């Protein structure tokens, strides 16, 4: 029939490729991982020498909370992250916008960023100690440095992606340059900048352990290091779980900030 009329009926092929939200899925994924892990530990498949069981990790966390050290560790780390991330982000936003707007800043900045970004911040630790001592300053600086470069790159790429037509239109309405930056470029670049925030907040958490290697009495990073040195693997994993929870919390907060800042879309 179809051949006769020369028309082939085409089934609707759209749909899919649109990941939505399943509220139960994240909980189920975590539950499955933890249940599998506990099962392996309980059956002896995973000896305690190699990996502590989730139950032991929870016990270690409970112990930490009961001793009152938990708040001290988390508090010390949160303040370092807050300072380091804020300083790195503010500086990175400033430099990134400059590189996104002015040719000279961009031409000079890109090679410098490319040269300095890949330096492992841990390698700079002895220098940071010489310059800044062993108190809070080098710890904050380590995190700030790690956050700075990805913020710069994320910001100037985001500025690049602001549609030029919008900028030209603003110019044709005779808006002054500062107003264009504030009203067109900043909101236009915001999605890219927020994506950079997601990356830099994780980098800040990763660098926490490195930052707290030197002279830290309290902090999640120093707690993890000490647990590793003491071969207390249950506490080591408990510290890692704390970092994960912190990461989840920050990711959740950023999601909220994103929804609020980008509701114009």
């Amino acid at each position: 029939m179809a051949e006769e009329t020369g028309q082939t009926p085409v089934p609707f092929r759209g749909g899919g490729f649109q990941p939505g939200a399943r509220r139960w899925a994240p909980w189920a994924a975590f539950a499955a991982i933890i249940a599998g892990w506990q099962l392996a530990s309980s059956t002896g498949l995973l000896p305690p020498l190699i990996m502590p069981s989730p139950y032991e990790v929870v016990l270690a966390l409970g112990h930490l909370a009961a001793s009152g050290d938990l708040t001290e560790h988390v508090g010390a780390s949160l303040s370092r992250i807050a300072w380091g991330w804020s300083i790195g982000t503010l500086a990175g936003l400033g430099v990134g916008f400059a590189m996104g707007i002015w040719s000279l800043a961009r031409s000079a900045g890109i090679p410098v960023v490319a040269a300095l970004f890949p330096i492992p911040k841990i390698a700079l630790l002895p220098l940071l100690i010489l310059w800044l001592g062993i108190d809070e300053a080098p710890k904050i600086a380590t995190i700030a440095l790690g956050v700075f470069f990805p913020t710069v790159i994320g910001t100037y790429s985001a500025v690049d992606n602001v549609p030029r037509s919008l900028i030209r239109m603003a110019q044709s309405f005779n808006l002054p340059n500062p107003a264009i930056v504030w009203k067109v470029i900043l909101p236009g670049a915001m999605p890219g900048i927020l994506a950079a925030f997601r990356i830099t907040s994780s980098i800040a958490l990763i660098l926490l352990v490195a930052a707290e290697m030197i002279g830290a009495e309290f902090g999640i990073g120093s707690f993890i290091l000490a647990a590793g040195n003491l071969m207390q693997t249950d506490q080591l994993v408990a510290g890692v779980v704390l970092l994960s929870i912190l990461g989840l919390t920050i990711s959740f907060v950023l999601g909220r900030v994103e929804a609020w800042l980008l509701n114009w879309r």
Partner: protein
Amino acid sequence: MNNKKLVVAALAGLICVALAGPARAADKIVICALTFVSSSPLFIAADKGYYADEGLEPEFKFFRAAQPVALGVASGDCDFGVTGLTAGFYNLAGKGALKIIGAQSRVEPGFDFVAYMASNKAYDAGLTSVEAYPGKSVGMTQVGSTFHYMMGRLAEKRGFALADVTLKPMQSVPNMIAAVKSGQVDSILMVAHIAKALDGAGAAKIIGWVHQETPWQLGALFTSTWNVTERREMVEKFIAAYRRAATDYHAAFNQLDKDGKRTFGEAADALIPILMNYVGPKPTPAKIKAGAPFIDPDGRLRVQDIYDQVAWHKANGLVDDSVDPSAFIDLSFVDGHYDVPGN
């Protein structure tokens, strides 16, 4: 065809002989250690052929930190290890994979091995003796390290709380040296050859020696629990070679003259070139003499001291309560251990 088969059979036979030959000739053992003078008996035994005399074929693996040595033995990658006794070691031993079978270095009266040092700034401000520690900051490598323990024992002996000093983990010895030189910490504990060099260069001041305050069993020789149960004969052979070498070391480096000062005679001069091949980095005869600890000639442990160490670490929350020293010390390989606790 037949010829080919014959050749194959002959080759297979040859390979079998080649594989079986050395296995019958010597037991292969892997020894893991740090390149410190405190590991000396291991090196002496290798150089003088004591392992070979026992039918052992040693292979050395060197590490830069004590922890990997203990982990290597626990995982079965190493047969024997010697390191300082840390809280991390005890926690690992408490999991049942390790057995202490003999002694390594001991902090013994008269033998400079670890010094209390003050930064120049702190020294000028009054940190001239160990009584002045309360209120000062002390750099150490890591939480639960031997430095941490020695500071804790000093606090006990001198009657101040360990919480009265601020302990700063610096992760490595070079970081500790940098921090005391620049005055960012008031004090560090440091091994003798580095401490004497720092003091001599005017970079920091030695204000006392650990052996004057709290002598203790600093290091031990250990093997895996599996070796003790499954390859006992091999462990006994190893101990025999180790003790011969420790006796040589004793004659060379453990000597005091009648005034209680250390003397190094011809025996030391004969051993130093051997040790220079193993000890790093950039060894000199003077550094080896300065860094040589007291090592028991027979591998005898101060057993009660190990129990005391575990108890101290437990009291300070550094070792798990479930760790039981009697479960990971095997006294059957060496006769005449000191201070064995009664049952």
